[in-house]
């Protein structure tokens, strides 16, 4: 009996010492990575979801519509999903700041693991006294909505 107890404690101890990332499931830290995104509307973009909750994106539409790279944050939502928000600076034809746009994003994993994701996005622009950190202050409708799919970028070797 005593021997079994020692083995049981040893097993529990080993499990406890195992890196948490190896046992994580769903859209948690182990789904952090860079994704090549295809937007149904035709745009291509790159999204990096960092394990610490930072979110960075760049889009093929930027030169055409004069907006910056997008930065923001994300958090886990449910077992296989996340919610995120990124902000972009939008410029007019004279390269002066026109507004701040906010993109709210909902994503979930597709299949097993984190290599494929899908979801949707909604873009709102905030002008004047409207606060991009408080979506309720936006008096207009979303300027764009789209669905997205993404594939994780993995190093070779």
């Amino acid at each position: 009996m005593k021997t079994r107890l020692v083995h049981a404690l040893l097993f529990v101890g080993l499990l406890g010492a195992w890196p948490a990332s190896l046992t994580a499931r769903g859209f948690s830290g182990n789904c952090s990575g860079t994704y090549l995104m295809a937007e149904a509307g035709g745009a291509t973009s790159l999204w990096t979801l960092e394990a610490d909750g930072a979110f960075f994106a760049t889009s093929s539409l930027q030169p055409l519509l004069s907006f910056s790279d997008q930065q923001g944050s994300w958090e886990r939502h449910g077992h296989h999903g996340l919610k995120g928000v990124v902000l972009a600076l939008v410029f007019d034809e004279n390269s002066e700041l026109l507004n701040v746009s906010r993109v709210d994003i909902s994503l979930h994993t597709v299949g097993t693991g984190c290599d494929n994701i899908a979801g949707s996005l909604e873009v709102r622009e905030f002008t004047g006294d409207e606060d991009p950190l408080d979506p309720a202050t936006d008096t207009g409708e979303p300027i764009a909505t789209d669905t997205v799919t993404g594939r994780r970028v993995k190093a070779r070797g």
Partner: protein
Amino acid sequence: MKLSHLLSIPVLLTFGATLAAEPSDHGGDYAGTYIATLPERAEILQLHADGTADMTLSDQVTSGAGGFTFSDSLGSWKRTGPRRLAARFVNLNFDVTAPAATYSGAAVVDYVLEFAPNRRTFAASCQGRIFPPGEDPFDPASTPVTTFDCAYLDGYLYRRVPLP
């Protein structure tokens, strides 16, 4: 001593050795911001402890491979050997010869980073391919419109950006 106890000792020793070895060559040891300064160009590369990475190159706003401008590069990295990392970056290319800059495809650039023993500098080499819009850049059967390498980095090192 019982056989089961004897068998558990090597397991424990192996597990302990793994834990002991990790701090000297763990991802956290490589995380940081690095810069390469060359006579005509400069590049900044960030490695994050979670395996993500990003990169800014001075020629992305003027003209890179294929004559295109391109976005910041985002990607992932992993350790492939002692002080050796593999990284894959992707960036978005634009044809600025058109009246309005037009998206001209995605580039996939695979890097090998060889760190010095002190992990403060590394030598980099790369192989890059640019694929037109609509082509899957991760499909081995896709045909790139442009291929390139980073031979210009020969003889130059990336250096970790020191704290003030």
